[in-house]
């Protein structure tokens, strides 16, 4: 204890002064506004400019959008209604074009009574992708993921159900070949068998089998041709199948680029660089103009299928770079540990390296998908009816000639909602993954 007592020294305060409210300028709205908007002359200037920008945009856009006309059959009718309500110089949107044509923008020329099919396929897709995206869901759902592609194909294109089933059987056959014959004839022979057997099955047996089954038990939906599909449905079909199909190819390419084998390495590098060096639009023109040259004479198949093949090759190069980033980000100790356990190359990749590398790459894969989804609009140039192509058709029709803002706002909003939410998901993923690594 000190010798000096408070009572002996006159100037020592004995009790705390009462806590006072902070000054008005340091609390609440005033402080926030002052600190965030008006702290320096430059800040004041920036605030004024931003307020002016916001006012200019909102004062034009809000009345235009809010007072828009929803019910009209053509642009002339729309303008007549506008003249009546707001006078000739009133600037309001003509949303009637959306309310009349939204189905076309979403589904293209898909038969209206079948709209439930693509919608159901999309819901199925969400259900199938969920167990991959959120690891907290039960693993049993992965069976749904495996079955989904065939069901979705059947729902969208229709036709007999036996076609997709017979194709799926080929994969089962391949799996069975590895699983049952593997222990007896050795891994290498089993792998070769698993490739050859389904190929023979698909080429020789699958077609007649599906035909026979469908005559015995005709279950099917109305078939729909690819050229009747359009709008956002087309963008989603091309985008999703492109990304899903390109994943395995991209992983193989990434492994090839990391490989020590000279030839494999160089082939992968050349493939990736050539694909990435040339714009997608050139590849799409290649698909529509040149693909027939490279295939046996007389081969001719669906333009949409050609586009999907090209988009798959294109995005596989980008996926490969993303996966390569994931492989490089993995600590070297993981590779060495797998080697030390005596795992061979494929086992160490499958059991140790790839599960971790792919997990790191998911945000990058999602970003690639966003880019690809936006790029699907380019198919308009080779004659497929994506949303922008449909908007051109609508603008060219006599009813809606001269309209553009409303259509572009609608299309832009749809793309924005889709891409923005995926972007947020990828950010969320990046955050959770980063925490795990610290």
């Amino acid at each position, binding site marked *: 204890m000190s010798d000096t007592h408070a009572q002996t020294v006159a100037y020592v305060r004995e009790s705390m002064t009462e806590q006072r409210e902070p000054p008005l300028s340091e609390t609440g709205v005033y402080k926030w506004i002052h600190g965030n908007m008006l702290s320096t002359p430059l800040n004041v200037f920036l605030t004024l400019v931003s307020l002016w920008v916001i006012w200019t945009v909102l004062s034009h856009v809000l009345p235009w959008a809010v007072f828009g006309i929803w019910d009209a059959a053509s642009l002339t009718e729309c303008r007549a209604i506008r003249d009546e309500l707001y006078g000739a110089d009133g600037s309001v949107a003509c949303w009637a074009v959306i309310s009349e044509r939204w189905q076309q923008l979403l589904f293209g020329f898909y038969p209206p009574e079948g709209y439930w099919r693509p919608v159901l396929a999309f819901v199925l897709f969400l259900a199938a992708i969920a167990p991959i995206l959120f690891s907290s869901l039960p693993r049993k759902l992965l069976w749904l993921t495996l079955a989904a592609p065939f069901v979705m194909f059947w729902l969208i294109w229709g036709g007999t159900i036996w076609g997709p089933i017979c194709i799926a059987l080929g994969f089962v056959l391949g799996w069975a070949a590895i699983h049952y014959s593997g222990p007896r004839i050795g891994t290498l022979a089993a792998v070769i068998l698993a490739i050859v057997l389904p190929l023979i099955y698909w080429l020789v047996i699958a077609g007649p089998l599906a035909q026979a089954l469908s005559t015995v038990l005709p279950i099917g939906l109305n078939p729909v041709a690819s050229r009747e599909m359009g709008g956002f449905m087309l963008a989603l079909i091309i985008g999703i199948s492109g990304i899903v199909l390109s994943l395995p190819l991209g992983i193989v390419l990434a492994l090839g680029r990391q490989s020590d*084998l000279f030839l494999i390495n160089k082939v992968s590098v050349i493939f990736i*660089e050539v694909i990435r060096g040339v714009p997608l639009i*050139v590849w799409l023109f290649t698909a529509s103009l040149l693909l027939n040259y490279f295939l046996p004479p007389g081969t001719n198949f669906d333009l949409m299928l050609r586009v999907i093949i090209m988009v798959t090759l294109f995005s596989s190069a980008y996926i490969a770079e993303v996966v390569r980033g994931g492989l490089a980000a993995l600590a070297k100790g993981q590779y060495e540990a797998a080697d030390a356990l005596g795992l061979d190359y494929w086992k160490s990749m499958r059991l140790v390296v790839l599960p971790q590398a792919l997990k790191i790459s998911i945000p990058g894969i999602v970003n690639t998908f966003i880019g690809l989804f*936006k790029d699907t609009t380019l198919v308009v140039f080779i004659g497929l009816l994506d949303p922008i192509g449909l908007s051109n058709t609508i603008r060219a029709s006599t009813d809606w000639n001269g309209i553009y803002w409303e259509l*572009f706002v609608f299309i832009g909003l749809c*793309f924005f909602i889709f891409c*923005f939410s995926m972007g947020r998901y990828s950010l969320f993923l990046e955050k959770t993954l980063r925490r795990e690594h610290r």
Partner: protein
Amino acid sequence: MTTMTDPPGQGFRLSQLIYDTRYRSLTIQMVAMILLMLTFSWLVVNTITNLHALGKDFDFGFLTQPSGYDINQRLVEYDSQSTHGRAALVGILNTLLVAFLGCALATVLGVTAGVLRLSNNWLVSRLMAVYVEGFRNVPLLLWIVLIFALMTEGTPAPSAFRGETPSSSMLFDAVAITNRGVYIPAIHFAAPLFENNFYNWLLVLIVLAVSIFVVKRIAHWASVRQEATGDRPTTWYLTLAILVLPIALLLVLMGAFLDLPSLQGFNFGGGVHLRGSLIALWLALSLYTGAFIAEIVRGGILAISAGQSEAAYALGLRPGTTMKLVVLPQALRVIIPPLISQFLNLTKNSSLAIAVGYMDARSTLGGITINQTGRELEGMLLLGLFYLVLSLAISGVMNVYNNSVKLKER
């Protein structure tokens, strides 16, 4: 006693090709090589058969034949009697032009938006977030088509500028924005030193470059002097004089004057005519890529830890100096590589010119030329090669830069 380390039976057995890791890689590569060559020869045989069936051959001779079509925007001499090769050159130059303009504007926009998004002004940072997210999440093609529609349908016709009380007027009496494009003033020389205008401009550029070089030397001299004596000589008037006087002298000598656009007949004449297609493509590419660059710049500045700037403040540096000497040199190392790959993306995306009818390489070489000569294979091959060379050149530059700025570690 036999040792356990006795080598197994000598001699090469065929099964070693598969089970011995020393030889297995060789086997795999041989198999891959054979498969690859089989695929290639299959493709080539198919192509040859198909070409033969169509009665075509593989020949680049069409490049020297007259093209027979006109190109509305050209940087070099060209008319419909010029060759297809010349048309391709015009297209390539147009691609490079819009790519260059786009990269420049996108960098300005992106850096501004990225820095402003980090501003502590709440309103500004939110506004920039809206810009970045809005442009990043909507397809580029939509922006191009939208801006082009604005340029053609939202702007007045040249006739609106006519009459006693015109409904539209030119900006500062010098720039006319019409639905046929934008007209801006041009600089002409009344008494040019060379016949060919190109050399006149080259001379102007050389004089500018020399001035800038001298100014740099002066700054260097001032720094040396400051280090030796402690105070920095005042050089701003010298700098200003060296920058302005020679170029002004040269321009006066050559009789430079501004050629303002003016209404002539049904359209504007004089000045430089920027087509709506070029402007729409340029603006859309820059705004779109600018949004990506903004994120790169923001990420780069955020990546330099707060500790770096705090350390600089602790040393007594002012905010501007801190930015210039501490944060930016480190942030640039993070920013430049993705920035260059954005430039690459912009260049490749310029092939979307097809949406607005801008005559770039794809529209001339990969479009009209192919349609007129029926040489899809050769045309697409050349077009792909052009983009590939461009990409490889840009990524080569990036690699050189990466090596020059990478952390020098021992």
